[in-house]
């Protein structure tokens, strides 16, 4: 299955900006389940400098700088991504590893285990409290398989939490999400990660997109999509498996991954520093389209 994603970010500045440095993490990486066939980046005004490289986690990074006076900045990234057939979930394999055994298994040699262990420690965003740990414990019951426990956590979160935009920002701490029981996808991804890490297990943050289906009989509107976030759990001998707590799903063909990290701060879609004192207005639109 092939998708085309158009992600446009536009800043309007109230005062002219003489110099801006930006880092975009908007180019999808290749994974076991997808391949990014083509990416076109359009930036207006034309940047004076562009550097492309991979970060520590293997995600694609685009740095660009505009070095002339400008009063708006528009960044559009068009990507074509091929999704492969979802591998069959080997439930019987997942199900036979009790979560308590995973910690010890991760200490065994092997690159997979080594790379997974870096996703165990809490970060400042995913710092857990007693409440979060207790919430996690209800899913991580003795003897349960890691897969079951994580899946149960996702289902409970879907039941207990309300999806609500505008209530939280990137800076909202998890304690508040926990208390108010509402938030958006990245809050839920962070909370789930905090829960799993509170059990001493690895979990990573995934940034990406999801295809939304138009109501029957209606044409899908352009730009109604948004960027999305979910999380991934490492199961020894099997690998990473992604869960979407916002939609109560194990990720499917409709999830397109940009990249992953310890939390949001490792891969915000677009960040920058400008030389200006004025304020700015921001517009973002995302469109995910199926090509075949």
């Amino acid at each position, binding site marked *: 299955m092939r998708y085309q994603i158009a992600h446009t970010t536009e800043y309007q500045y109230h005062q002219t900006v003489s110099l801006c440095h930006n880092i975009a993490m908007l180019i999808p990486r290749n994974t076991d389940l997808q391949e990014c066939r083509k990416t076109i980046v359009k930036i207006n005004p034309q940047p004076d400098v562009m550097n492309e490289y991979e970060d520590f986690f293997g995600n694609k990074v685009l740095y660009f700088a505009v070095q002339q006076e400008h009063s708006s900045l528009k960044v559009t990234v068009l990507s074509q991504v091929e999704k492969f057939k979802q591998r069959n979930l080997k439930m019987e394999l997942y199900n036979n590893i009790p979560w308590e055994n995973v910690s010890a298994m991760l200490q065994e040699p092997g690159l997979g285990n080594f790379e997974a262990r*870096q996703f165990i420690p809490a970060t400042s965003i995913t710092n857990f409290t007693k409440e979060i740990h207790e919430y996690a414990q209800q899913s991580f019951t003795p003897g349960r398989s890691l897969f079951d426990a994580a899946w149960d956590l996702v289902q409970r979160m879907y039941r207990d939490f309300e999806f609500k935009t505008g209530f939280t920002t990137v800076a909202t701490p998890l304690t508040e999400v926990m208390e108010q029981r509402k938030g958006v996808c990245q809050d839920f991804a962070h909370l789930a990660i905090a829960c799993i890490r509170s059990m001493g297990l690895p979990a990573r943050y995934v940034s990406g997109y999801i295809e939304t289906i138009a109501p029957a009989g209606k044409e899908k509107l352009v730009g109604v999509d948004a960027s999305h*976030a979910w999380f991934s759990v490492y199961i020894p001998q099997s690998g990473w498996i992604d869960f979407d707590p916002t939609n109560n799903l194990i990720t499917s063909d409709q999830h397109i991954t940009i990249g992953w990290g310890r939390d949001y701060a490792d891969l915000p879609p677009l960040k920058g*520093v400008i030389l200006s004192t004025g304020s700015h207005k921001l517009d973002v639109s995302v469109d995910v389209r199926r090509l075949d």
Partner: protein
Amino acid sequence: MISQTDLSPSFLEYLDSGYWKIFFNSFAELGEDEILNRRQDMMRFLTENGVTYNIYGDPKGFNRPWKLDIIPFLISKDEWELIESGLVQRATLFDLILKDIYGERTLLKSGLLPMEIIYNHTGFLRQCAGIQLPGKHHLVLYTADMARTVDGKIWVLNDRTQAPSGSGYALENRLTMARIVPELFNGLKVRRLSPYFHSLRNALTSIAPNNNKEPRIVILTSGPSNETYFEHAYLSSYLGFTLVQGNDLMVRDNYVWLKTLGGLEKVDVILRRLDDMYCDPLELKEDSQLGIPGLLQAVRSRNVSIANPLGSSVIENPGLIPFLPAIAKTLLGEELKLPSIASWWCGQPSALQYVLDNISSLVIKRIARRSNVGTSVDATSLTANQLHELKQRIKAQPHLFVGQEKANFAASPSLVNGKIEPRDALFRSFAVSSSNGYTAMEGGLTRTSADYGNYIISNQMGGISKDTWIISAESGSTFNVRKELEQAPENGMTYKSEVLPSHTAENLFWVGRYAERVLGNARFQRTVMQFVEEANKAFSDNDEYIKESLLQALTLHTHTFPGFIGPESEKKLKEPWEELNEILFDAEKTGSLAYNIGLFNRAVYTVRDHWSTDTWRVLRDMEENWQKAFEQRQSSHHRIIYALDNLITSMVAFIGLNRESISREQGWTLLNMGRKIEQSLLLINMLRVTLVQRHDEQIEYILQEAVLKSNECLVNYRYKYRSHLKPSLVLDLMLLDPLNPRSLLYQLERLKVDVSGLPKISSGHQLPDHERLVFEAYSMLKLASKEKLAEPEKNNGIYKNLDVFLTKMNKLLYSLPNVISKAYFMHAQASKQLFTNNTDK
């Protein structure tokens, strides 16, 4: 002196042996009185040279005088050979570890080094992974804190790789000793420090991108409030590298540029004294105001080199210690020459158990240093409750903690309160990358605790430093007082490149402005206070009215509202001293003299490498006298007025000395421009608040007299006009007289020359804005007529013409600093973060 003390016999025996015996012979030859005199000289020398360090979070901790013990720390030749080879080995080892951590990560993957020690360390900057650096070593500078135990063994206590400090203080200590007590070097061949700095310069040159043999090297500081800012400025002078703050630099086209008055200059190498986390707000700590956005891009593009490289602080990590011997064996095939204090990393279950079981005999450290928070806890001094809490903290995050054995250090003699006493000593050694390995400084910085037996030694906690002497048998590289002094910073000045960073230029400009502001306000306030003091004795109604007018003028002039103005002012006008006192001494009050002195001092310290020793002495005196005046602020009014006299004299001396001490033309121009602009604005403001309002003749007379007095022009006036004060003549003298150095015309004539001397930014025939403004103000003055300005307007309580004239003049000159700032200082615009928070599905 030795015999007077109650030192233990074994310690006395120690002091009577080997090199110490030679040292104390020289010591005794000088005699007790002379030693104490020299100690005084030493303290004065350090103070006058502005040798200071700052203590965070302590309002009085800013610019603390540096403390130096007259008795050095001695290291024998044999001992040094071990230390030197051990230091070089450690530097080599850490360089390999650093390369591995940010490269292949073989040590981590193989489990030789548990990855948790690195990945959980705040100094592990993932953004720096995979970056290839020019030069032989990644680790350019390495520093270790060491101590000697009672059995004579040397142990390493801390490894420092972030931005090691102390080399400048070590050098300053040596120069101070050489100058004040040269006799003590007699008979001891002490090795020299300067070869180290030569190696440092070579090392920095060798890492320049593209094999540039003459790179531009800058020292990056976080600014005057940094703990060791003195040293940053000192090294800048000594090595001839421009001292810069983050906002002096910018990244364009993947290169780093220094913003100077004349434009952008490419920077090749940065000697970093700013923690790496703060260096790039684009990729590292996002709220850092101290860094350079985009710096990492320039590093990735290999267009700039940083020493030590970003990410190197991960090596400052006591968690590494237990694994070093095995790593040394694997990577170097060698045993460690210098042992670390026995340490247990709590991330391993058995080590954790050991630490928990033996906690009350250990020192507990975190793997990563945290700014402003102590990272070491001496658990031997904790109560049962505190121990319990500490254990809980360790158990919650064991991989973040290390337990260390508490060693018994050998005491070293120190001069404390005129007596020789034993003190624990910690000495810091320095190594720098060189073409054939690493070069160690043949000396170091020794610090002793303020109290005997105090285990944790730091400057922040009031330690005292010592010069460190390595006694050598060879003669070639030994210390020679004159040779070393020849390389003192005053002589190093000639290295200094001619570029003036915009930020420095701006600060010099502000030093000029604040100096004049302090001076002008002090003079005016002195005039007012003298009058108030005298008016108290006379009892005429007019005197009372004049007094009030003057007090109100003071409030207007200093902008210390409400002060003597407004509905609440009646009581203050009757009993003005409390308010007058506040306008002088209340540093919290915007516009007060103390407030302006604070701004002046801050600007002065920011560009501290620009002042000569004589200038420092004047500044010190000024600060001390002002502090004294502050303490006696409740005493007699005469004494306060006398304190103002002193302040005024010092400030005049400061301004005078600058002519001699600021050699670089652009710097002087900037400072002078600041002065002239401030003088002009102050004068205009004073005339507006005193002479625009109409009063009866006698009052106007007194006000005119006050203006002349505050500007030191009364004598001038009498000499020139030989008449009573007349408005037109007063205005003539203060505004239009080209020969009166206090007149506005005089200031503007000089200002006109100064602004035209600024580097030209744009071509073409049109005058740049700042020149246009000065020219317009100048022409207005030249075309003005004194009679017209002094003409009273009928039916109106003010001198209308004068008012209009001064208002216009003020407007022109008031906008001048902004225009100059925009054209030359370039940080009118602060940078800020942009974020998208668009993940909301």
